[in-house]
């Protein structure tokens, strides 16, 4: 019969191996993703895109970096959001600093 500590160490070791596989996976996919990134990057360059397409429901969530100071964040940059995803996104840094003065 296998020792309890042996079984546990085996369990822990296999967890570590699986975790290392995820690291390896991340590493391998990183190389693979270069093409994918290059493709998207080409699109960004050709179309002069400025933002990621994560939240499409409102102008200021679709293009946060292009948002102007007052309309997107309604009354105040820290106002509660009409669109839920607005609460996940921060107003762009440049709006918070020199946009305010």
């Amino acid at each position, binding site marked *: 019969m296998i020792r309890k500590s042996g079984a546990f160490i085996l*369990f822990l070791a296999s967890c570590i191996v699986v975790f290392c596989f995820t690291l390896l996976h*991340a590493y391998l996919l990183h190389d693979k993703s270069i093409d994918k990134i290059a493709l998207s990057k080409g699109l960004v360059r050709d179309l002069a895109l400025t933002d990621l397409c*994560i939240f499409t*429901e409102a102008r200021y969530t679709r293009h946060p970096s292009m948002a102007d100071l007052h309309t997107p964040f309604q009354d105040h940059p820290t106002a509660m959001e009409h669109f839920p995803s607005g609460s996940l996104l921060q107003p762009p840094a440049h709006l918070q600093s020199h946009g305010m003065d």
Partner: protein
Amino acid sequence: MEWIEKQRNVLDFTLSSILRRKSKNIALFVVFTAMVFLLASVLFFTGAIKKEASQLLRAAPEIVVQRMQAGRHTLMPLTAVDTISAIRGVSKVEGRLWGYYFDPVVGANYTLIAVKDALPGTMVIGNGISRARGLYKDDMMTFRTYLGDNTAFMVSEILSAESELVSSDLMLISEQDFRNLFGMKEGLVTDLSVTVKNSRELATIAQKIADILPDTRPIIRDEILRTYEGAFDWRSGIMVVLLSGSVLAFVIFAWDKGSGLSAEERREIGILKAIGWETSDVLLMKFWEGAVISLSSFLVGITLAYLHVFFASSVLFGPALKGWSVLYPHFRLTPAIDFYQVSALFILTVMPYITATILPSWRASTIDPDAIMRS
């Protein structure tokens, strides 16, 4: 060798102890794993988004110049192209013609961009639109123009699914179609993209643009990039707020388990001391007790989080991330593991747990070995 045997012997005993309180420890393991899983999922997801954004948006325009009127973003006259081109150090100025179209059929917003090489009457659409509307190559889609009449475009191409993170909701049409659709006069564009000769002069040139055209607002690429560095940090992230509830519950749970050393456990420590265990041996046993639960939970939780974010496209975050988006992009993030974050997570979960297990036993383990005889 002797040291290893000792650790294994003590670990054997610890595991036997843990197995005695099976349901309690399984519950603990499940809660701990779930917490690590959620925290790690958030970390992986935001980390990967930020990394991808910083790579992709490096190709964004160096400066975007918007015109502001009465506190609102407004159309830019093309005469500004010459004004800006005249600034020393500017190599290229181009008008960008883009905007949004709300599609009442599916209730989604599309981003329309006028491109030079598009044939009038045709459009290139992003994969997200194709999916939402069931539109494929050579299909027609009808738009309502600013005058209220209908006009139709034929899908000539669908942008690749791999680029969905930037292109999901895009519709590329010809400039003439764009102007006809929205009633935008010749000589006006949405904004300008500016390319400079020496990127070190970006800030100076942006300042000059703002000086010469006081009603404009230049946005430098660095600012665009920084927007995404701060993305999801907002309000420390609603997710983290939500999570803090469970973290708190866990802390209470762990505290209760750790500090509430039961009479039974106290008696056991007394027995161990009496039969010749040193204080350090008892603490070693308690260390293993904390380590067994927390290490396994950490490893299982973090691995599950990786699978969740990078294989299952963060399905569990769907409701939070999608928000009201009808057109939610399907993107597979490129795995990015930030070792700093992983170790921070390790230190913030495993360490306190082990400490919470050892500390309460400290007092119990320093009792005199003959206590059990006197009681």
